[in-house]
């Protein structure tokens, strides 16, 4: 009787563990699905503010304008219709507020009753006009031509160079500089922190005096617990001016500052996990190697490290994950300029910093909101690819050792 009861309890506990595993997996999958679904909605929307259209005079031969051209026109960088395939005329910009330059407030009406007719008149009377007006004031008798809405294309999103998500009439969602910025900062953070972290782990596990190790380990684990805002503050006050002085730069907020901070943040993780993995090498293996005449270093290099390679790979993955996804610290020290980095000494803008800075104000369900989710999806894919690569490398090592 007692046995069946025990068996039942065991089965029950097994069931609970299975259930919790399933729930966790399903939750993670749902989050990923939600991320991609919101992000993909981006490509069904135009980048113009909802409820607004762009209108030109009927005599204008131009039939469509790309998002980039619209932005350049309203920024004053494209000044003649000839540059976008029209006649050789200067472009005249018109926003709906400018209607008061042409008509008085009484003519417009207290509730803007006459606005549709007046807008129509203005657009009709100026042949080189481009007007950015609310759709609700464009009625059937509108005498101008409304330019067709252009949806955001995949190419524009992935290879566009400019990130101006709130610019009207044409918001620019070019994620290329963000993607390269993220990869650049993370690459250097990993290059700095992985070798350094591994070296410290080997030192602490194999070479250090036990007293030194017992002192260092809790200190390093303490470092892992410091909030990232504190690191960001430290970076802004200490690291940025130091870089500015050291390299004689006009400004210290650079990718280098971001990489250094990320490396400092990833180090404790990499060190503690690698060190634990290295320490689990069985003494028998180490002693066998030493008995065969190998030196301590040869033992470390040829026996200990390959044995703990899966633990070191785990440490690397976690460290890389921290380096790529870290938001607050990077937001405060890299300068957040959306340019493609050509050297370490220029400011960059990373994806997590962009999401953190802009998520609060993006209207829910709008194109900016969906663009941020698309960025999150890109970040997820980047981390996934790197994790798969690290896993693959460590597996290859294990297989080749057999």
């Amino acid at each position, binding site marked *: 009787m007692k046995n069946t009861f025990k068996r039942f309890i065991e089965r029950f506990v097994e069931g609970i563990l299975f259930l919790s595993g399933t729930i966790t997996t399903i939750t993670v999958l749902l989050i990923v699905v939600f991320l991609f679904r919101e992000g993909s909605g981006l490509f069904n929307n135009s980048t113009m503010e909802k409820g607004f259209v762009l209108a030109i005079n009927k005599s204008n031969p131009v039939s469509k304008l790309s998002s980039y051209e619209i932005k350049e026109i309203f920024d004053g960088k494209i000044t003649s219709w000839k540059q976008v395939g029209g006649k050789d005329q200067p472009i005249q910009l018109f926003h709906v507020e400018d209607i008061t330059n042409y008509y008085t407030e009484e003519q417009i009406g207290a509730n803007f009753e006459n606005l549709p007719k007046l807008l129509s008149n203005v657009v009709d009377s100026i042949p080189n006009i481009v007007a950015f007006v609310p759709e609700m004031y464009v009625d059937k008798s509108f005498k101008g031509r409304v330019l067709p809405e252009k949806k955001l294309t995949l190419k524009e999103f992935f290879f566009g160079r400019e990130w101006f998500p709130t610019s009207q009439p044409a918001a620019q969602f070019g994620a290329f500089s963000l993607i390269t910025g993220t990869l650049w900062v993370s690459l250097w953070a990993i290059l700095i922190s992985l070798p350094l972290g591994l070296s410290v782990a080997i030192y602490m596990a194999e070479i250090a005096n036990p007293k030194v190790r017992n002192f260092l380990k809790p200190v390093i684990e303490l470092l892992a617990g410091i909030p990232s805002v504190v690191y960001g503050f430290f970076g802004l006050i200490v690291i940025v001016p130091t870089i500015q002085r050291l390299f004689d730069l006009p400004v210290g907020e650079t990718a280098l500052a971001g990489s250094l901070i990320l490396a400092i943040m990833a180090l404790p993780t990499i060190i503690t996990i690698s060190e634990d993995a290295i320490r689990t090498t069985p003494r028998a293996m180490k002693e066998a190697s030493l008995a065969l005449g190998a030196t301590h270093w040869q033992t470390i290099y040829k026996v200990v490290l390959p044995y703990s390679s899966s633990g070191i790979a785990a440490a690397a993955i976690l460290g890389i994950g921290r380096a790529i996804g870290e938001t607050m610290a990077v937001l405060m020290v890299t300068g*957040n300029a959306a340019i493609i980095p050509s050297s370490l000494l220029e400011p960059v803008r990373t994806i997590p910093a962009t999401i953190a*800075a802009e998520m609060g104000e993006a209207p829910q369900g709008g194109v900016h909101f969906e663009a941020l989710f698309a960025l999150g999806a890109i970040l997820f894919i980047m981390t996934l690819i790197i994790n798969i690569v690290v896993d693959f490398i460590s597996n290859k090592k294990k297989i080749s050792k057999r």
Partner: protein
Amino acid sequence: MKAVNIRLLLTALPLFAAAAALGNTIKVKGSDTTLPLTQMVAEAFNKQKGVTPVAVTGGGSGVGISALVEGTTDIAMSSRPLKFHEKVKFQANKLVVKEVVIAKDALSVIVHPSNKVGKLTRQQLEDIFTGKITNWKEVGGADARIIVYTRETSSGTYEFFKEHVMNKKNFARTALSMSATGSIIQSISQTKGAIGYVGLAYVNKHVKPLAVSYDSKNYVEPTLSNAQSGKYPITRPLFYFFDTKNEAKLKPFISYILSAKGQAIVKKDGYIPVK
């Protein structure tokens, strides 16, 4: 058993009280420019007896207005007027929004204290911030690169500066975006060639404000008296937006800030009183 029960109840009581109180606070959220001012007014207001306490958070004008649309805040502080799509959103959610001007703010253009340049025209400011002018020597300063600092796109300060000083043109791609006014002050105070813009109340001795001219003839310093008299051109109203359904609950706080006591705090904090 009984002792444990009583102890549990006693520990739970303050929690209930806190929860009840929290449910009955006036939540104010939004612009970082109005944040220090609102915090000081809220402190003075909360000291009074029998009033609903006020809780204030920042995040940017865009964040505050989004929160008002979603109903997670009672008052949205903003340093810019409502955008068209925000008005449409309020209509769609059946919210009737009222706006109150609680103070005026002057936007000050600041540079590093060692910068020789002391005044700029609006056109020069536009060219610097859009990236057309890249070296200080083009505006009468030393031969050094101009480092442009701006706020993030969620900031009302950003929107106001873009619309009024830059005539709606976009910032240079190489402009460094900082997410808080404090970061801009910190960065400009440690970068010799930097230029940026902050609310007048944040200017301290670590940065140098510039005189601005809109007609290339009269240069006006950003001081309190110039802003109050209207001579300083980069001035903007600071708003509180709220749902008229909550007007009764919010009336004590709003009338406090518009009263003589509230406006005195406005003036002490470096903003311009409305009356």
